[in-house]
């Protein structure tokens, strides 16, 4: 993030397709050199937002400015907003080098220079020796890198990415995430990355924009969104969160009859969020406040094991543990446990 003027500004942007409002009143600023991920469930308007930025869709109302210039009437081919497509959209009748050269050719760069620049990018993406291959002779990861080289060869100030990793195998996704973050840091350009995958967005982005039903639900750093979701939609979408209902009176919240410290919260009924990895599991009732819950099941996730419980009020509770913790707890379905958390792990959501 820089403190200069933003590179991209969406001002009161709306987009409808017939009666369907894909994007309702979007206001968003994207800084220079920033890695922004736009995330949300399908149909939330994230792809439409990206397509409006590329000029593939025109806003129904509102304005989009890039680098101070209003873009509403600028056609796609006059914008400098290369897009890495979900399908990659590499040209099957051109070889690897010709694909990468395409953008330069359209900009009227001389044949010698465009070849040199294309080869440099292929080298940089680790595709030396594949220059004359056909696209269908490449693996998924190689195609991905050709698509990146094709978009970046024109040295744009912004790269748009539309779920580019969704077609890759899990191990390749992690590797490509590394490639993308490194590339973005090295080039210092803006990346706008659309995804439905929380792990991709949180792993790479400086700032995450969560969209739901055509509106921005929350903007913030990955940590902020993870620890302090502003509303129930975000808390649920991010997952691995416990959403608990209780009543606050004088810095104390009462949940299922137990009193927990909750400093600084206004009195009255509220919802709080406790992340699964901040939830502590006790095999016996602790002296401090805790929620009694019945063990339901466990799930092996990449970073640990998520244990699912059912509280006395029927609410679902999740706690993340390590494998050794799980061995000590020896949970069985129906066995009672007590769940508690440190006061600073609880976060009040607005509504």
């Amino acid at each position: 993030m820089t403190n200069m003027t933003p590179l991209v500004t969406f001002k009161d942007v709306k987009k409808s397709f017939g009666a369907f409002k894909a994007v309702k009143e979007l206001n968003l600023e994207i800084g220079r050199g920033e890695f922004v991920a736009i995330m949300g469930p399908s149909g939330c308007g994230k792809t439409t937002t990206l397509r409006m930025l590329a000029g593939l869709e025109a806003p129904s109302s509102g304005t989009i400015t890039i680098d101070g210039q209003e873009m509403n009437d600028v056609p796609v081919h006059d914008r400098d907003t290369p897009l890495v497509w979900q399908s990659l959209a590499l040209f099957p009748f051109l070889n690897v080098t010709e694909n990468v050269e395409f953008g330069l050719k359209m900009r009227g760069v001389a044949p010698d220079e465009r070849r040199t620049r294309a080869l440099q990018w292929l080298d940089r993406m680790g595709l030396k020796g594949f220059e004359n291959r056909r696209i269908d002779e490449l693996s998924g990861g190689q195609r991905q890198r050709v698509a990146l080289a094709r978009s970046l060869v024109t040295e744009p100030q912004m790269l748009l990415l539309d779920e580019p990793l969704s077609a890759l195998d899990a191990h390749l996704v992690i590797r490509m995430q590394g490639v993308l973050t490194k590339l973005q840091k090295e080039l210092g350009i803006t990346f706008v990355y659309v995804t439905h995958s929380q792990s991709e967005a949180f792993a790479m982005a400086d700032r995450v924009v969560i969209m739901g039903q055509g509106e921005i639900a929350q903007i913030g750093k990955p940590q902020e969104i993870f620890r302090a979701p502003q509303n129930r939609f975000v808390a649920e979408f991010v997952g691995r969160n416990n959403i608990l209902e209780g009543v606050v009176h004088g810095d104390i919240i009462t949940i299922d009859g137990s009193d927990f410290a909750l400093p600084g919260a206004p009195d009255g009924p509220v919802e709080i969020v406790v992340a699964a990895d901040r939830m502590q599991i006790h095999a016996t009732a602790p002296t401090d406040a805790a929620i009694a819950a019945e063990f339901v099941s466990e799930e092996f996730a990449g970073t640990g094991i998520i244990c699912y419980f059912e509280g006395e009020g029927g609410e679902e509770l999740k706690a993340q543990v390590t494998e050794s913790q799980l061995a000590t707890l020896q949970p069985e379905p129906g066995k009672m446990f007590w769940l508690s958390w440190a006061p600073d792990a609880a976060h009040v959501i607005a509504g």
Partner: protein
Amino acid sequence: MRIGSAISWVYVAALFAFVFAPIVTSMVFSFNSDRFPTVPLGEFTTHWYETAFSRPEVWTAFRNSLIVAASAAVFSTALGFATAYTDFRYGFRFKNAYLALALLPPTIPLVILGLAMLAWLARLGLSGTLPGIIIAHTVMGAPFAMAICRLRLQQMDSALEAAAWNLGASPWRAMRTVVIPFCAPAIISAYCLTAAVSFDEFIVAWFVSGLNKTVPVMILEILQGNVDPQINAIGTVVFLTSMTLVILAQLLILRKTSS
């Protein structure tokens, strides 16, 4: 299993024999020295080819047919491609009606189409001229060209064209550098097929050709006079020309679907 496959091979061979026997017979007799098609065969000769192609009207007919086929194929393919692209790119009301209309010509009986063409072209002062036959054959060929191009466009990722715009290609340039190269096999195959349709076409050509006879029309006129082995010779040349075009078209269609 073995016997089963042997039987199916025999069946296929029999089927091909049944379909191609008349044509092969005609080819064989075109090289036979006897005046009448009888067995046993006479001697091998190229006499009928020599006499047939020493007649200037045969050359004129071939020249007419080639001009008509080559031109009608250009127009049919262009129209067919444009129609298929419109279907691919745009959604609009009455699109189904538009497509049905575009695919209508092959469903009209040829006699009716021939009569209608004659009446219409006569008003335009084009009946009996080569442009008149070209127009008629363009109408007949365009639906085939459209079907072939449409098949190819269906295999195209719609992001491909948008990717070209996104990389700085204007809509026309994207058409030239992406859509047409992608569809090239289909376009060439549509050209070959519509040329073959035009080259073989008799009924409509008979109505509108007047004095500018195409090969099929000329063949009928020779036949009306007498049975002459020259017909076999001319027929063989026509068959080989059409088959070459059709096989070329098929090869291109097969290759594009496999890649």
